[in-house]
């Protein structure tokens, strides 16, 4: 077993010559990239530059790729939130408790944690509402709360600020700060506020070739 100090020094993610293709088309290409443990990294680039694909690879949802992907975080500790998150039928609270239930957290603790994270995202008042009746922004904040409540080691957020107004974006920024021990990657087609991320990776794409540069 690796001593904790040594483990903390190692990068959480190391990518080398990663290429994802769909048919003949390269949809994501990364030459080299390392992401430090516990950092919050933004990932920008135009539509179609491979941001979502890269996040899916890191989440373990995309396994058909070439190159080397080293992630020093077990798959059970990685949580991915889709660009258009899917909310299960049921209430907002049930959605936020979903992953906690999977981790066998007691009912009382589940409720307490879920309510706390709903409050972090400014949607505590929606706890008993049907998840299907939410607006786009409310739904996104619910999905983010559902992911954050698990306090995962690696949190992968695909365009988390889409659909959000300025107040909603502020709630997200503040809530992410609560996850001090997590490595967070968030993508955006537009530059992200420095208040939100410590560093930014830029994915640039052309019609036939996409590459990453730091």
């Amino acid at each position: 077993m690796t001593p904790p100090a040594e483990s903390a020094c190692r990068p959480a993610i190391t990518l080398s010559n990663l290429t994802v293709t769909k048919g003949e088309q390269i949809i994501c290409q990364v030459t080299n990239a390392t992401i430090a443990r516990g950092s919050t990294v933004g990932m920008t680039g135009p539509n179609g530059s491979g941001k979502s694909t890269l996040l899916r690879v890191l989440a373990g949802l995309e396994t058909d790729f070439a190159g080397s992907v080293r992630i020093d975080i077990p798959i059970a500790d990685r949580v991915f939130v889709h660009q258009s998150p899917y909310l299960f039928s049921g209430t907002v609270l049930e959605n936020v408790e979903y992953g906690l239930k999977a981790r066998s957290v007691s009912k009382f603790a589940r409720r307490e944690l879920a309510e706390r994270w709903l409050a972090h995202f400014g949607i505590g008042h929606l706890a008993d509402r049907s998840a299907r009746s939410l607006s786009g922004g409310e739904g996104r904040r619910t999905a983010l709360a559902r992911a954050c409540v698990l306090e995962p080691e690696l949190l992968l957020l695909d365009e988390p600020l889409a659909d959000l107004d300025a107040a909603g974006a502020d709630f997200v920024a503040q809530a992410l700060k609560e996850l001090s021990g997590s490595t967070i990657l968030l993508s955006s087609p537009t530059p992200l506020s420095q208040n939100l991320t410590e560093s930014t990776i830029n994915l640039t794409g052309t019609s036939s070739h996409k590459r990453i540069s730091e």
Partner: protein
Amino acid sequence: MIREGIQEALKLLLRLDTSVIDAATRSLWVSIVAVVVASAVGIAIGLVLARKRFTGRSVVVVAFRVGMSVPTVLIGLLCFGLLSRRGALGEFELLYTTWAIVLGEFFLALPIVVTLTHGAITRLDRRVFETAITLGAGVIQRAMTYLREARLAIMLAVLTAFSRCFTELGIAMMVGGNISGRTRTLTTATALETARGEFASGVAMSLILLTIALLVTLSIALLSRATAEAES
């Protein structure tokens, strides 16, 4: 003739004619038991076929799909072979009992439930599976999530199976034997009464059959609409 039959049928129904009520109750009981068991087995099979990759999976899917269009007389014939004295299940002496009809209708309902459940789960949004996985749900929690998200379409599958079982004749006739007070169902009674020239009784049985079938069809239509709205 039909008008007279309907008038006579209404009289039979209003005075709660024993033979009519007996056949109706038995039809309902047999179909409900067969569909409940077929649903318990079929939903699980449909779910596994939709989510598990294994060699020969598509062959199994096609086999169940083909099973949906097997004529009821053929199922009746196969069950007769199974349940007859020298058949694999002969020792249980189930032939010409209501349990024989339940068994036959189970085989009738199973492919319907499996195929429609498989379709319902397969059609679910990919994000349902990915979200459940990324949030760390175990096998059971994932399965329950998929069933919950596809519940309207699965209820539709169960109702469709019930509708098919409730209105079938071949199985009930072949393995039930249409024995009065023991295995007579609405469909076999209708066939018998009409053959005997008791047209009013036949129409009365048909009216009950039609009413229940219409209620089920109405439920299917309402569920279909709800499913379409939920999926849009």
